């Protein structure tokens, strides 16, 4: 036979045993499969922008890890009760708290290792695709705090309510809590407000979060404090767990003397009480701080007591530009992966309107949020510049959502520019309703640029009231007439009538 001969300290030897015989590794293949289908594929659908990709840690990864972590920790925590070794281990001199802590540490190490490995996969994938920035660490801290909190909760449940059904019940409970909405649950606890922000699961941010403005860590700090407080408090509860178990199972207060007789001395009990108090205080403080959260100018959340003015400064913008066809298109370096797509979409339509009054001299990507409000794409300035946002390019036209129809995205983006051009500055981009004449002209220009007209077929002709009675057939007929003109004739007509067209005083019949 052979036994270990490494001169490891006692705690390290015990931890090694717990790591070696832990249940987590047996579940890792299943966890990896869920991670692939839920987290990794979702992240892959996002543009390779660090903040956006990192949002899957709270929204997807923590969700799947929580269920596994809760269940597996409850399984580990209930071991002594399930396997009926309570008396046997109770006769040993090592403090029960130390013994349980080692078992908890074994489970937590595996879960955190798996969690960090998952984060590493997401981040390596992002690093291979991203063109700007670096990995944000706060989402990792929040995720790790979440996994830790759920693990300690599950373990404590297992210790206090040992049984073979404890683990599945805890796992299902965590799933239900996640699905039913921790945010909603938190909202119920206090008066309506921002307490739901304590949940690490939030809506995906806008695509350029963290690109034009720093992401203030205020919310992450509060989330870590909240979940860390829960973990610390319950870790303290574990010190009293052997006393709580008989209370929970049968005895009520009559079991209290026996429970204390099994305790580990006043010093350990004092430490557990201090830990519980500190944990509760931390969580309560975080809860109170979350109630003071308010939206900042960049669309994120700031908490006045924690906020640093340094995070309000805009991030220095570094642009990537191209002007291969003479029309300069610039995007933030973080989005340079779609620069060629944007330029290829804009060039033909810009060629159709080049030289006309108000035609953009260049196109530039700007921040999606400014002053706390969403920024709308449009043409402004002198010389005119077509300003578009990554949010519009990505979310509105599907560039970031994995929509395989590149032509549809191209047409949609071209329409965004033409909408802004035909409406005149300052107007909205995207699929805004034009009047019938504007729509007919836009359809012709889109066709000339090589895209499928979108407006007439979708019937977006409601508009300014003057020409609202036009039917798609009327618009189509006018568009056919206008398309029959030579490009130079169309250009010349537009040069003369563009002001009237923008003002909405041109009727379909007036289109040549």
């Amino acid at each position: 036979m052979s036994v270990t001969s490494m001169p490891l300290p006692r705690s390290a030897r015990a931890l090694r045993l717990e790591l070696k015989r832990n249940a987590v590794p047996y579940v890792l293949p299943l966890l990896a499969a869920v991670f692939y289908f839920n987290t990794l594929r979702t992240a892959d659908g996002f543009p390779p922008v660090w903040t956006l990709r990192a949002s899957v840690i709270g929204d997807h990864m923590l969700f799947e890890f929580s269920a596994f972590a809760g269940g597996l920790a409850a399984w580990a925590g209930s071991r002594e009760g399930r396997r009926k070794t309570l008396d046997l281990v109770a006769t040993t001199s090592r403090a029960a708290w130390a013994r349980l802590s080692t078992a908890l540490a074994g489970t937590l190490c595996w879960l955190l290792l798996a969690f960090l490995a998952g984060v590493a996969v997401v981040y390596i994938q992002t690093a291979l695709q991203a063109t700007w920035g670096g990995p944000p660490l706060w989402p990792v801290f929040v995720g790790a705090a979440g996994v830790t909190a759920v693990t300690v909760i599950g373990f404590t449940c297992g210790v206090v309510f040992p049984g073979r059904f404890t683990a599945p019940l805890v796992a299902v409970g965590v799933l239900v809590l996640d699905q039913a909405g921790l945010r909603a649950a938190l909202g119920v606890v206090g008066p309506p407000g921002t307490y739901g922000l304590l949940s690490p699961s939030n809506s995906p941010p806008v695509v350029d979060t963290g690109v034009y403005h720093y992401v203030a860590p205020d919310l992450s700090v509060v989330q870590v404090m909240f979940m860390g407080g829960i973990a610390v408090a319950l870790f303290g509860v574990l010190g009293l767990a052997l006393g709580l178990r008989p209370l929970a199972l049968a005895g009520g207060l009559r079991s209290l003397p026996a429970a204390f007789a099994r305790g580990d001395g006043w010093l350990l009990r004092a430490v557990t009480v201090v830990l519980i108090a500190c944990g509760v205080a931390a969580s309560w403080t975080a809860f109170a701080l979350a109630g003071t959260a308010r939206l900042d100018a960049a669309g994120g959340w700031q908490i006045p007591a924690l906020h640093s003015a340094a995070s309000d400064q805009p991030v220095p913008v570094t642009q990537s530009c191209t002007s291969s066809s003479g029309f300069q298109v610039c995007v933030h370096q973080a989005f340079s992966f779609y620069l060629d797509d944007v330029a290829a979409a804009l060039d033909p339509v810009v060629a159709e309107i080049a030289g006309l009054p108000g035609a953009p001299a260049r196109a530039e990507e700007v921040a999606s949020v400014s002053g706390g409000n969403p920024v709308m794409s449009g043409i402004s300035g002198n010389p005119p510049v077509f300003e578009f946002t990554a949010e519009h390019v990505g979310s509105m036209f599907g560039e970031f959502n994995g929509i395989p129809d590149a032509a549809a995205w191209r047409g949609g983006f071209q329409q965004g520019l033409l909408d802004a051009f035909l409406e005149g500055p300052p107007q909205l981009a995207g699929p805004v309703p034009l009047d019938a004449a504007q729509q007919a002209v836009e359809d012709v220009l889109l066709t000339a640029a090589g895209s499928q007209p979108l407006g007439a077929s979708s019937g977006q002709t409601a508009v300014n009231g003057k020409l609202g009675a036009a039917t798609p057939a009327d618009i189509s007929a006018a568009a056919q007439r206008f398309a029959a003109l030579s490009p130079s004739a169309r250009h010349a007509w537009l040069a003369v009538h563009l002001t009237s067209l923008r003002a909405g005083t041109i009727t379909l019949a007036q289109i040549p």
Partner: protein
Amino acid sequence: MNVVLTGIHRSFGKNKAVDGVDLQLGTGVFGLLGPNGAGKTSLLRMLATVLPPSSGEILLLGRDPRRPAGRRETRRRLGYLPQNLGYYPSFTVVEFIEYFALLKEMPSSAVPKAVATAVERVDLGAKAKAKLRTLSGGMLRRVGIAQAIVNDPGLLLLDEPTAGLDPEQRVQFRALMRSLGESATVVVSTHLVEDVGAACSEVALMSAGKLVFRGTPGELTARGEGHGVGDAPLERGYSAVLSAARS
């Protein structure tokens, strides 16, 4: 004296499991006999420091286990084999025994040798790396004995230690008990009077929570001469003492 019990009582609700037991034990193998429900296991659990007495004084290995420091010191030198051994199926034999050696706070450097010795003493060397889930009931019993003796205890408490062992193993184990009893107090709670006769230097009989007999196996046998029922002399002594206690 390694064990000093004075007026020990233990009740569960209205049921008196142990009712005024006084006992002093030095080194040697001490057999604890009695019918089901006599209070043997409760007494053993109190000696194992997992069950506090309702009243009475208790000193184990010269320390008061009601005080945390005394309890901890006692437990370092305690070995306990419960009647129903719980175990972790995914642990190997060595890992399980090592786990308990660590829980008993043995010096880390001494653990490997102590584990190896314990495994050899229960003749499980060939199964040292086997997972516990693969072992038979008798082998598991030997694992339980190994974890109890791994720390070379000053007080060894064995509840039905030979249950599940085959005759050959039982003989070996009795020899082991005698060997351990030379330097430690070994308390054996059992239904098997032949174990007592073969291994114990002293025996006590419990009935309804009280000690109704204490003496050598020979003295117990003598009580059965002309009285009692049973195939073996010791069994006749056992039944005679019980009958007298009940009447």
